[in-house]
């Protein structure tokens, strides 16, 4: 019965699902759908599409459950599958068009400059909403390859180490380091450009 699975650990649910119990896996679906959607949402900003990719990743996870190695947390394995599913789908479509940085409004650039000068966390929360982050990153991220973006998110947003990222994604640590270096360099350059524009707008 589905209700009886709710309090079980991921490991127990995986074991039951491996034995063919789909209801056990559906508990995992409900438990980890947000993680999968968050990962997909890095590449697909439309919420419905991100959920569609997350569902596809969960189907792949269910059908390949026997490949999950002992000791690997289901959540980490799902992150890898969701990342690969997203990257696969991206390959089949054109990337988001890059918008010129000059199209940022003066308010946004001024706020960014303020933040870069070291505004506090509360100030940050008040001054920059998610939509504005989306606005700025929507212009910067298309210049970074999807795989480099993956590393950037995991380093910055999830605060994971290079070793952890390499383990989760199944990439070498050198690969992760190179991608992190490249992505960070691009991000710095692009943000510097945004801030320079903010300065020009004030003059």
């Amino acid at each position, binding site marked *: 019965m589905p209700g009886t699975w709710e309090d079980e650990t991921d490991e127990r649910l995986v074991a039951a699902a491996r034995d063919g119990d789909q209801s056990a896996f559906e508990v995992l679906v409900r438990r980890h759908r947000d993680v999968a959607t968050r990962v997909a949402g890095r590449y697909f900003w439309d919420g419905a599409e991100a959920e569609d990719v997350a*569902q596809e990743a969960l189907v792949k996870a269910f*059908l390949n459950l026997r490949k999950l190695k002992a000791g690997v947390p289901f959540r980490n394995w799902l992150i890898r599958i969701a990342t690969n599913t997203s990257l696969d789908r991206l390959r089949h479509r054109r990337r988001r068009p890059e918008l010129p940085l000059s199209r940022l409004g003066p308010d946004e650039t001024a706020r960014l400059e303020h933040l870069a000068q070291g505004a506090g966390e509360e100030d940050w929360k008040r001054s*920059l909403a998610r939509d504005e982050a*989306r606005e700025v990153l929507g212009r910067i991220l298309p210049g970074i390859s999807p795989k480099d973006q993956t590393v950037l998110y995991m380093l910055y947003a999830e605060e994971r180490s290079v070793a952890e990222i390499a383990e989760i994604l199944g990439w070498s640590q050198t690969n992760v380091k190179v991608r992190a270096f490249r992505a960070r360099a691009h991000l*710095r350059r692009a*943000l510097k450009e945004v801030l320079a524009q903010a300065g020009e707008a004030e003059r």
Partner: protein
Amino acid sequence: MKERNEPGNEALDRLGRRLLRALEAEPRENRASDAAFVAGFRRKLDEARRRRSSLVEGIGGWGWRLGPMLASAAAALAVLLFLAPPGSRSGDVQAAEAPETELWAAVSEGEAAELTGAKVLDAILLGDRR
């Protein structure tokens, strides 16, 4: 004119980190309910299973067709090889088979039944002397 401080790499990293976290932190709009999400999962799972089974059926169908075809081809080849006149075989094959034919011709039927490794050598020498 207002004097500006050029932000250093640390400040830029901090800004980048905050932007990325802000983007991920907030719940996404239009989030489907758990029931709707699971229903979508089930629908995709059914589709994936159907695709898998049609793929297996496709391979199975080809197997049913390919099996008899391969068996017929092998039988035809065997018949052709059996019926082929000796002159049509390659010279290498004939040369390789020649000593064996001579060997068996060199020994009598009774001797052939008792042939062992040592006796084969004897038979060859005997044949050479004949």
